[in-house]
Every structure is written in structure tokens, then in C-alpha cells.
């Protein structure tokens, strides 16, 4: 993409067409809340539109969009986490409940692998999305997450190990059932 001082409406449209779903997926993967993902995506594209001049062309435009999305998602997450932790501390729910988002994921996840990815801790979900789906290199992931490359590598290793083991457990349970 040509680097310009400001973004025109046509470019915004083309960015949304090419990366809208991927940006939404990334926000949802971090927050696991559809309404919040909608809000974050809206804000991410508006910021990209407003601050296109700050895109220096060092990374791809997709990585730049993912970076904006990540900053917004974690800003939200860190404020929402404490609020929820405090409220949960004061409300004791009775019985076992599956949250609306969990029910949605069970229905909507494309396949068992993605269903399992959504159950992983956020940092594992995130690194698998970036490496497996977006095919980013470890260097790009480290830069996006703001961590050393070695940390990214060990985090990815941990995430892969965890998911492989969960999928094997599933296979075992399935075989027993048959």
C-alpha cells in the first residue's frame, strides 16, 4: 500500500474489505465479547483513518491494524477485568452456568480446533492466531506483542503443546465413546 499523509474513503473501504473480519477476530479473541469486539473494530478503523500519517510502512498495513486493535483490546480488557473481578467477588452465582459467550462459541466455532483455541488463556489464543492463521514470523509477533523474540518463541511453544494435548484428550474421549 502506498504510504500517504492521509487516508481517503476508498482506501478505508478497501482496508475494511480486506482486513475487517481478521481485525474483528483478533479483538474477539482477546475480549471474547461480540459487542465489545464491534466497538473495538469500529474504533480501530477510525483511528487508522485519522492517523494514517503515523503509519511508517515499516510493517505491513495488516500488522499495523492488528497493533492498533491489540492496544485498544488490552486497554479495554485491563479496565474491564478489575471491574468484573470486583463485582464477581461480591456476587455469588448459584449452580453451574454456561455464559452466553461460551454457548455462542460452542455453536459458532468453525471446528473443534478453533473451539479449543477459544478455551485457551488469552496469551496462548493470541499467539496461535498470529502465528498459525496470520503466518507472522516470530520477529513480527515479538514486535507486535512488545516482548523479546525468545519469550514469543517459548510462549508459542507452550501454546502449541497445550492445544495439542487438549486435542489428543478429545480424540481419546471420542475413541472410548465409540
Amino acid at each position, binding site marked *: 500500500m502506498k504510504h500517504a499523509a492521509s487516508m481517503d474513503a476508498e482506501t478505508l473501504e478497501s482496508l475494511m474489505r480486506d482486513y475487517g473480519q481478521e481485525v474483528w477476530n483478533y479483538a474477539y479473541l482477546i475480549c471474547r465479547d461480540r459487542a465489545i*469486539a464491534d466497538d473495538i473494530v469500529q474504533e480501530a478503523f477510525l483511528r487508522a483513518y485519522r492517523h494514517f500519517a503515523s503509519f511508517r510502512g515499516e510493517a505491513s498495513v495488516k500488522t499495523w491494524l492488528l497493533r492498533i486493535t491489540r492496544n485498544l483490546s488490552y*486497554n479495554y480488557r*485491563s*479496565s474491564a477485568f478489575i471491574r468484573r473481578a*470486583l463485582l464477581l467477588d461480591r456476587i455469588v452465582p448459584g449452580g453451574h452456568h454456561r455464559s452466553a459467550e461460551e454457548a455462542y462459541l460452542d455453536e459458532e*466455532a468453525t471446528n473443534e480446533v478453533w473451539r479449543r483455541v477459544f478455551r485457551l488463556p488469552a496469551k496462548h489464543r493470541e499467539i496461535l492466531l498470529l502465528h498459525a492463521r496470520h503466518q507472522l514470523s516470530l520477529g513480527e509477533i515479538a514486535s507486535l506483542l512488545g516482548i523479546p523474540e525468545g519469550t514469543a518463541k517459548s510462549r508459542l511453544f507452550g501454546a502449541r503443546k497445550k492445544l495439542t494435548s487438549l486435542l489428543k484428550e478429545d480424540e481419546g474421549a471420542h475413541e472410548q465413546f465409540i
Partner: protein
Amino acid sequence: MNNSSNPEWYETLKKDQPLRTATFTKELAGRIYKQALAESERQTALPSRRWMLAIATAVSAMLCVVLLFAQQQQSAPPASASAETAGAAALDPDIRDTLIHLRGVQGFEKRILAEKRIYDDLVLIYSAPPESTERSELFVDILKWTDYGGDRSVGTGLDGWALAYSEFGTLSGQESMPGVRYDGLMTYGELNVLTGKLFKTDIAGILVTDGSGRQWAAQVFPCPDGSRYWFADMTVPVDDYRIDALDSQGKVLSSYSPS
């Protein structure tokens, strides 16, 4: 790590979208597009206003310089600006609102009761739910400037934490002294916030005194249910402190020392 060492399920993640249904809908894209265009139109209409604002600012600045010069002629030179706020970044109200409002909750815009700069890089904001909700709840938001290593221009540059104070569930309602409840101490780095509630109308304020005699007056905020929250924020470690309930004349009505 190369492609040959990737587990077989990698291909599934690469090939398939996470969710069956497209969630980045045409409606959402349309909404973003419309808002972006509306912003552009507003901006193109702005230069004349900006120009007027610049002139007004310049005139104000000149007036300030003239007044300051006149004052200096009459009295001693004014004290220098506080070191605490010198060089501090200004808090953009739009970014502040984006971070503190409950995103995803339509119409839930907090009413800011007090905003306090703690350090160069930290702001403490006390706020309440919208009046229409009649909720007896108070929020404490901490916004901190964060250096994303050169990426400030694309992020907000700020991180946010929020605490909600409310009467949900079976929170013990025991008073620590007559008409006053002490709920605890919240800390963030060197920032300490003591908090609690007031239930008697003759209590006008709360004063916190530490072992070395330093004192802090708490901020008191009313709630729709008639009770009031109090918050005393301090930027030094506090180990040994006493909480005094004061009447409107500053007379101590009762005291409590958390063990």
C-alpha cells in the same frame, strides 16, 4: 520454527475462519465508513474556527503576559510552577471518556465527579453512573500514560484500570465507628486510596492522620440512596493511620484506627 515442524492442526487454523458466521458485517462496515466521512467533513469545516481559536489564544496569552508583568512590578516574583505538574502531558477528554465509559453498554456514560493529577503520568478520576440509572455506585478510574516504544501515535498512549464500589451481594455492612464504614485500602504503586461510606448526615468529612502527623482530607461523594462514599488518596506509603469523622465545624465526632 519452520513449517515442517508445525502440528497438523495448523493447517486447519490457517484455512478456516474461527467462526462460521461473518461477524464483520456490512452494517458495521457501513457505520464505520459513515462516521469516518462525517469526521472528515467536520475537519474541513474547522480551519476557520481553529484560526479564530488561535487568535483568541494569542490575545489571551498576550493579556496574561501584560498582567503578569504588571504584577511583577508591584510584588515579589511569583513562585515557579509545581515540579509535580511540569512537563506532564495533558489529558485529552475524548481519550479519557473512551477509556472510562462502560463500552458496550448503551448510554452508560459516567459522570465525572473529580479528576486529580497524581504524578506526571497518572490521573485519578472519581465518577458516578448516569443520574437516570439511580445506582448508588461510585467508580475510581486510574489512567496511566504508557510508552509503547514509539507507538503512542496509534494507541491512546494511556492504560486504564477501574474499580467499582457498590453494595452488591452480601457485603458486610458493619460500621467501623458510628455512621462510618471503612472498606479498605486500594494501592497502585505508591498511590494509596482509603475508602468507605458515611451513613449519618451530621458527619461532614473524614480526615486521615498517619503516625508522623501528616493529614489528608477525604473526598466525599453523595449517592442516590442518601449514603455517601469517602475516598482519601495519598501518594506516600501509609502503615499506621487513624480515621476521624468530622462535623461541619471540624470537630472530631469519632475515630477509628484499622489494625
